């Protein structure tokens, strides 16, 4: 069976896959036990499966395992933990910026990518940057507040 070596959350991991076309998501969830990335649509339309590939946001539903190569994969688990949350995650906790939480991790990843690109985004810039992430519960306003909070915290 073909074997793939990945760098995930700063660790080297090996994954076997009978089908190299398998989307990265299934390898992360089922082989590596990283279930923060969620299946939403499989069509690159909702952002639930957002991960970072070399710091750039990527939808793990359409990135094939065989195409990941040497790029560094970061999943929400690689950002922080409940006890030591990443500043963006801490801002989401402070703003209670989730309802059901299913879409939340994809939004957190998109926010991390945004703040790397634009450290102090306006609300409108954040709205544009997150426009690829869907939320049906209506947590958007809190999320936008959390983005501002995270940006301010990073500024110190």
């Amino acid at each position, binding site marked *: 069976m073909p074997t793939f070596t990945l760098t995930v959350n700063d660790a080297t991991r090996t994954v076997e896959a009978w089908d190299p076309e398998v989307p990265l998501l299934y390898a992360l969830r089922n082989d590596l036990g990283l279930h923060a990335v969620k299946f939403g649509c*499989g069509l690159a339309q909702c952002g639930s499966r957002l991960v970072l590939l070399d710091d750039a946001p990527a939808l793990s539903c359409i990135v094939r395992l065989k195409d990941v190569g040497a790029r560094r994969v970061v999943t929400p688990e690689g950002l922080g933990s409940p006890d030591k949350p990443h500043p963006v995650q801490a801002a989401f906790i402070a703003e209670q910026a989730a309802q059901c939480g299913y879409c939340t991790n994809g939004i957190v990843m998109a926010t991390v990518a945004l703040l790397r690109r634009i450290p102090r985004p306006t609300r409108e810039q954040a709205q544009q940057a997150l426009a690829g992430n869907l939320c049906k519960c209506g947590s958007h306003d809190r999320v936008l507040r959390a983005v501002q909070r995270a940006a301010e915290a990073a500024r110190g």
Partner: protein
Amino acid sequence: MELRQSDVAGAGALTRRAWLEAGAVVVGFCLAPTQAALAQTAAAAAGAGRSLRLDEVDSFLAFRGDGTVVVYSGKVDLGTGHRIAMRQMVGEELALAVERIELIEGDTALTPNQGPTAGSTGVMRGGVQLRQAAATAREALLAMAAQRLALPAERLTLSDGEVRAPDGRSIGVAALIAGRTFDVKMNPKAPLKHPSKYVLVGQSLPRPDMPDKVTGRHVFVHDHVVPGMVHGRVVRPPAVGARVLAVDESSVSKLPGVRVVRIADFVGVVSADEWAVVRAARELAVQWSDSAPLIGHSAVVDWARSGPFVAEEVISAKGDAQRVVALRDAADAVHASYAWPIQSHGSIGPSCAVADVRPDGGTVWTASQASHRFLNVFASLVDLPREKLRVIYLDGAGCYGMNGHDDAAADAVLLSKAVGKPVRVQWSREDELGWDPKGPPQLLDLKATLTPDGRIDAWETDMWVPRATANLEWIPLLGPLAAGMRQPVGQAVGLVSQNGDPPYGANAVKVTAHWLGPAPLRPSNIRAPGKVANCFAVESFVDELAAKARADPLAFRLRDMANPRGAGVIRRVAQMVGWQPRPSPAVAARGGVAAGRGMAYIHYKNNETYVAVAMEVEVDRATGEIAVRRVCCAHDCGLMINPDAVRAQVEGNILQTLSRTLYEETTFDRSRVTSVDWASYRLLRFSAVPRLEIALIERREEPPLGAGEAASTPVPAALANAVFDATGVRLRSVPFTSGKVKALLA
């Protein structure tokens, strides 16, 4: 520490005494869900031995040896904050910190059946029941301690797990009852703490599940893993009602470990490898019969008006009936029709469930709103006595009523029984938008006349809406139907006929429901069932009457608003938005973009929460695009257990309903649903989110009312009224797509 539902899954197998003694150990470490599942053999599952009776305190509360309390809630947290609110309500009565309260939700072996988590009843009914259990427990504990300390109970106080006497003596709750059950009947009159003394209720305490949710650690049902579990998918037909003619299993024989399960027209695939079943479900060659039983979405309004009807019912009538009859021929009467489309729940995660069905018993993990109801359903599907089956709630992606989760659970049950292994079924995006039970279509005709001084004289509402089948045991489920198993015949739609009357003074009012038979697609309750469309019609029509009277729409409403709490939210929202009194529409501004404001009000179900919403919009005349700039909402739901959780519900209600109103309609042809992805079933995106301003009215001495639905209902009319104010164009059918607006503007 947050004790997850799954962590205590094995608890049912323990005796009460062992459970209490083991308590400190059980909370001492956090089992992974897989281990929890290991501990929970099917045989042990059902034999919990707990009281689940609604009239016993033990059903709701258990005191552990370490002074912590376990709360057993039949209502579940659907992302709504119940997980903190229930702790606050119980903790308040027991004077116990929320950190010392564990919460178990929606587990048929452990939690009493408090009814489904629906209709905004979580806190209002479920929480109030838990609060009464806690108050009864306090009363009983004080009585026990009074006996031990030889003091009258009135002189004792309970706090932090200890009963204290004025002389300094104290006795721990553990010493009073540890190792025993209460055996105390619920006392509906057990005194509640006075609201002026609240220290937990009314505080915006953070939700305990939030750190796990934003760091990817939260265990959704989608993440639940059981040893030996395989993945399953069901192959749905290309047309509603199509039958299987042939299945060519060789089409998937190259995919690893794939097994095809066929029961009549139910076709499923399972494999230990999830990607293999995803591919197998796509690639399995199934020959289906032709089927075209649907009417197509463009025929829904005609269908609603023409029937067949199963009944006609006068929902409300007041004043002089003759005036209503006279409306029909009155030359000066205002008439308008409003339509609400079929909508999907649009859950971001397609429905998922895990079932482990063995010959001698089984467990189903599901995101159901009604674990207890579906225990009976699943037991009947696999011919097990209900005592041998257990249904455990785990969080799903937000539902807003019955989405596909109960169908997915039935799929998992059928597949698990067929292959003799635990099976996890997750639907595809196409499955979810195509096959989830849909919010039903609604059509309303309104007529009214005005008095010479511009007040509502006579008013008539006729509504055409699918009728809920009386005493329907459950909504017929897709998998069992396809498998040829007995399912109830009928439909559920929720309480759809409320709020069809104007909430303002009128001389004569009549509301009639024309009940339709089977809806074009299988319906279920969806957020604010019926009320969202009824309020859209009623509050748009009130605006039409105000325009006819050349009156300011807000003043028109206030003038004949008898209810002080209702008037309170209207005045408050007017102040928030900076309402300028004038009739609508505004004097037309030149240029490409027209700006306007609108408002709407509801007294939810005529006896619950009061909400007024006002908003500012801009309409691009060239494209027909509506941009909602700012939404203000004043909300009075009585006592708020956790104001920030209420605020989150209000925000969600507003944004979700903007999405439903602007974009959402399930489209279908003669055979199947055609809006099966996020391009064809659009949702509100971050880029279109307006500024929100929310005022929560404090009413500490009033009973708590629901917050999960009410604020959604005034949103569509407030939006339509704002578009009318901006453009003079009246939108009477949802969704307000740019194409529709552009056509009306032309």
